[in-house]
């Protein structure tokens, strides 16, 4: 029983981070129809910048117990790189989707070296800040409080996104644009502004995800390209373009991957991708996707 709770709690933490990145991916795909391969790279960028920003904030006298706020702020600030990225992508909105995919791959290569330039090739760490809150015993399993906070935050973001997309005027505009770019433009929606907003928001979700994961691990140059593999699995299982899909997919992938790590570490990626391929073959639109092939 303990084992199962352990898997579930650790899996949910992974799912929380995965959800943030996948939500960014889904938002951008849902509205702009672009698969953003660079979503993993901005996640790595968020992690590195989060470390630097938090270290700086603490040297400015930020009390250690407020460090998650610094991480959050750092993630949001670096999320602004979405603006120049969108400016570049804008140049090829009218091209075939494969070319947009290739351009985001170019961004992956560039961002990896930009990180190498500023932070070096060695993995970076934030130290043991995460343990400042101690641990909590949940259902007979001890877990760092910080992890619980991240899970809660991801749930808040999920609820916030649902509210934003479903209930607000801006959300309605976003959904309308996703439905049909031309008609929305004809209705007086500034589509290029919407694209800028969506891409920046999607990027910020990724950078915040990266910043939040860092107290529990290390930031490395490969973390971006490695994460994409899982984020892709999430969106395929959940259904391309669906927020609900991102949440459910993240939970499935997070739990499955943790279960694999606890039992047979060899099949970690393997198990996930068997499900992904099964999904693509039998239900390519995913659990909640509406886009058929």
């Amino acid at each position, binding site marked *: 029983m303990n084992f199962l709770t352990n898997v579930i709690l650790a899996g949910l933490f992974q799912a929380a981070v995965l959800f943030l990145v996948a939500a960014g991916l889904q938002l951008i795909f849902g509205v702009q129809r672009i698969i953003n391969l660079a979503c993993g790279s901005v996640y790595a960028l968020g992690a590195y910048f989060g470390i630097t920003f938090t270290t700086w904030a603490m040297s400015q006298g930020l009390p250690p117990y407020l460090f998650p706020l610094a991480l959050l702020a750092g993630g949001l600030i670096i999320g602004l790189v979405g603006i120049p990225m969108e400016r570049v992508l804008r*140049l090829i909105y009218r091209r075939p989707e494969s070319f947009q995919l290739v351009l985001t791959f*170019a961004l*992956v290569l560039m961002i990896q*070296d930009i990180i190498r330039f500023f932070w070096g090739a060695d993995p970076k760490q934030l130290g043991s800040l995460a343990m400042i809150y101690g641990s909590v015993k949940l259902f007979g399993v001890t877990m760092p409080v910080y992890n619980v906070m991240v899970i809660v935050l991801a749930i808040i973001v999920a609820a916030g996104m649902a509210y934003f997309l479903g209930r607000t005027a801006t959300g309605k505009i976003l959904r309308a644009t996703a439905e049909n770019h031309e008609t929305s433009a004809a209705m007086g929606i500034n589509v290029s502004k919407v694209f800028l907003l969506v891409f920046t928001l999607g990027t910020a979700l990724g950078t915040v995800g990266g910043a939040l994961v860092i107290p529990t691990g290390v930031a490395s140059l490969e973390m971006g390209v490695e994460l994409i593999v899982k984020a892709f699995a999430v969106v*395929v299982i959940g259904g391309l373009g669906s927020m609900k899909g991102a949440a459910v997919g993240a939970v499935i992938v997070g739990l499955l991957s943790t279960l694999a790590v606890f039992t047979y570490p060899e099949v970690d990626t393997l198990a996930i991708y068997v499900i992904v391929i099964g999904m*693509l073959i039998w239900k*390519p639109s995913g659990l909640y996707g509406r886009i058929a092939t």
Partner: protein
Amino acid sequence: MMSRILLVVCLAALAAAPLVLPAYFLTVLIPFFAYSIILLGFNLLFGYGGQLSFGHAMFVAAGAYAAAASYSILGIASFEIMLAVAIVAALCLSIPLALVASRFTGIFFGVLTLSFGMLLHSILFKFYHLTGGESGMRVPRPTLLGMELDMYNKTGFLTGPFYYYCLILLVVLGYIMWRLVRSPYGLHLTASRDNPVKALYLGVRVRWVRTVAFIVSAVYGAIGGVMLGVLTGLADPELSYWTHSGHLVFMTILGGYQQFLGPAVGSLVMILVQDQLMAETQYWRFFVGLALALIVIALPGGILGGLRRLKLKKEGKAHADARQRRPARSTA
């Protein structure tokens, strides 16, 4: 006619290269042969078929591992047997995948192939008792046509007999591919790319045509993979990583996916530039990425596409663009 003469001159230059160029440049040219073969196959799928695969590197890895396995399991170090094993491996891997993947186009095809590629990568990476895991598997120095060629040292072997063997293989496989894309099959493939519905109504078996393209490109990938394996002496799981697939896409677009020889030009330029950049700076990925971004934005036809446009402009017959045998418009 001009381009044909140019091609013959280039091939002659490559054939004469071992007589004049230092060994270092020759070891840079062998990956060019290997990648040219891989990309000629890849472009059948991408350029002619309009299917962008983001997992094509899995077949390169399959080729390299097949070469390693034919030594470690069968105990044979003959290059011909390695190629045969690699082709069989590529067929075993690609036929079931092709049957599934040919149902998809666009983004879904890309994601599906990426998934398969990562599946293979995680198998190669994690099952170390079978595949050597992170450190990969050793590929021995093979015999060529049954000859031991003991008189050569390692560099001598690679820059001598192996160089010519690869060059001849490239010419033969290139010729086969040329005939293939000019055949009725090639027309069916481009028709399926440009307008699948219309092609279907005209009697083109679109799915079948795509399946064949996938399998042929897989075989070409595996053959190139064997060469890379022999060259580095190693079958490495990173060969199957998705970023390697991305580099294959990059080289194809760099050279120009709308021209038959575009991928070969792309691989040559990429290998030479990467070789220089890696010596100059550790940030070569940045410049490669920048180049890729610039090409995608400003020069979508790649190097050959750009040259072609320049030539057409010079001759003052830009309207001939419309009569290009392969239309610039693509649903790729």
